[in-house]
């Protein structure tokens, strides 16, 4: 489903010094997989996640999505893939504070270029009910607990029926009990809906939810 070939990400620190955030990464993630990416801080986990999720472009190497090379795609085509193919979950939840829970969850639907196979409002209600957030539908994010906010973020990631969920330390800002609830939810989505999930973490008990653990250090896969 996802295939990275010799992907590197280089940051120019000044005209002389360059820094490899990622170095010659080869990686394949298969359909329906649940994998975690582990590594110490600064090892390049987020950078890798952004490249897989098409938020960022590699400095060199090739990224294939469904066997399609993405470097030839226009910004609009990449935006469409971000909209329909991937769902993001972040450590800081990244909900838009001025929008209600419902507006946050349905936000991706206003950016879609293809005909929706569902009614955004109905699907949002359905997911929120499943996630136990029905009463919070019209609340604003700052009135929710961290765990609730993260579930809203997952609901938002799910609304477009993506094939891939990318979660960058989704439990990083949560206590361990809530963290495990979120992980249970993600595992359920992976099992019930055959959703591919890739998550970044540096906690090994969180990583253990995944069937496969990818270890990374200094921009290289171990």
């Amino acid at each position, binding site marked *: 489903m996802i295939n990275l070939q010799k992907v590197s990400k280089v940051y120019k620190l000044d005209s002389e010094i360059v820094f490899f955030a990622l170095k010659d990464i080869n990686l394949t993630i298969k359909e329906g997989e649940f994998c975690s990416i582990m590594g110490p801080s600064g090892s390049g986990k987020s950078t890798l996640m952004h490249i897989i999720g098409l938020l960022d472009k590699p400095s060199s190497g090739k990224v294939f999505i469904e066997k399609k090379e993405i470097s030839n795609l226009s910004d609009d085509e990449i*935006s469409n893939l971000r909209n329909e193919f991937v769902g993001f979950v972040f450590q800081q939840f990244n909900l838009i504070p001025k929008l209600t829970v419902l507006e946050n969850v349905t*936000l991706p639907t206003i950016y879609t270029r293809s005909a929706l196979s569902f009614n955004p409002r109905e699907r949002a209600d359905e997911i929120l009910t499943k996630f136990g957030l029905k009463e919070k539908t019209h609340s604003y994010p700052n009135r929710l607990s961290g765990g609730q906010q993260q579930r809203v973020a997952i609901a938002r990631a799910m609304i*477009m029926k993506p094939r891939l969920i990318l979660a960058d330390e989704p439990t990083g800002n949560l206590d361990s009990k809530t963290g495990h609830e979120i992980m249970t939810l993600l595992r359920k989505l992976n099992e019930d809906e055959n959703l591919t999930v890739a998550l970044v973490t540096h906690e090994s008990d969180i990583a253990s939810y995944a069937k496969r653990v990818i270890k990374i250090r200094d921009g290289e896969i171990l």
Partner: protein
Amino acid sequence: MINLIAVYKEAIADFSRNKVRTFLTSLGILIGVFAVVILMALGLGLKKYISDQFEALGKSTLFLVPGRVLSGGGFSASVSSLTGRFDNRDLENLKRIDNVIGVAPIALKSAKVMGTIKEDFADILFSSEAIVDIMGFEVDMGRFFNKNDVTKRAKVIVLGPRIASDLFGSSEEALGKKIRIENVRFTIIGITKSRGGGGMGGFDYDKYFYGPYTTGYIFNPDKKFFRLSVKVKSENYISQVREDIKQKLLKRYEEEDFSIVEPTELMTAITSIFSILNLVLVAIAAVSLVVGGIGIMNIMYVTVSDRIKEIGIRRALGAHQSDILYQFLAESILLSLTGGFLGLAFAYLGIFFLNRYFPAYIDGLTVVISLVVSSAIGITFGVFPARKAANLEPVEAMRYE
């Protein structure tokens, strides 16, 4: 194409969260549109006022005035136009020209007169019965002086309705009364219908006295006229008659001593001067629109900086660059349109009050133009901040705190 309704709804929601900021930002456009619309309304009003004044004269009238009035398309009233020049011989000569159906000489006199309730200065216009047709006078009460009055040098006078009520309280009171102009007693035989107009130094027909020019010789021992108005059979003969008059007059006068003026020609000259003046004023006012636009641009840059993270999130959720562009463009357009609408509303109110003193008005075109210009300002000044927002790198933007 993305859901524009959603975009505008969000922009409006944003504005209602920041009402004061929204109002202050659109204030520049408000003032600009207000100033431009008011000035355009005054210009239109003035133009209409002038053309109304000339309309009353009809298209088939020519004026003879001393000196050069229109030179090189411009308008230059020379001093000599105030002094009398033409005499009875000219009058008779002109009457004999083919297709001329009437010639009205005009001599003016100003005198202190005494009514029953007030003493006042009156301007008296001495002319012939032909003036009724040329100026389009209608009588409200009594009658206008006729040919017989002119021949007999009758001491009769017709009053405009305004001066009549100023001096006597009402037209009814004035009719039939005697009035003394210097040492001569005149009988008021009629009151004209009101023609409106006047104000701002224009010719206010309602405030004049009208008497036979022959009687007027009492005050005009030289028997000179300051103007001759010539009524032509129809518009089609204007140029021919004009040439004939010129040939006739050239036998007695030098070319630069008189001018033959068509009302339309004069009107075009006058309105073109006012139009230019108005355009200059409107252009100056339009500068404030640009200032308003810069104010919007400034706030939009602030808004973009405030929302870099939000932009990053939206991009991560699949927003295209154009979606972000439209979102911010929608905001700046709404800002300047709000200013435009408010400016227009205030201008409307202003014109409503101005109308008591001046015939100002706005037409549909002014409304359309001011709204189109407001949106155009929103687009022009909003596009730079919006492009900045759209071109942000998603990852960089998301990392921004």
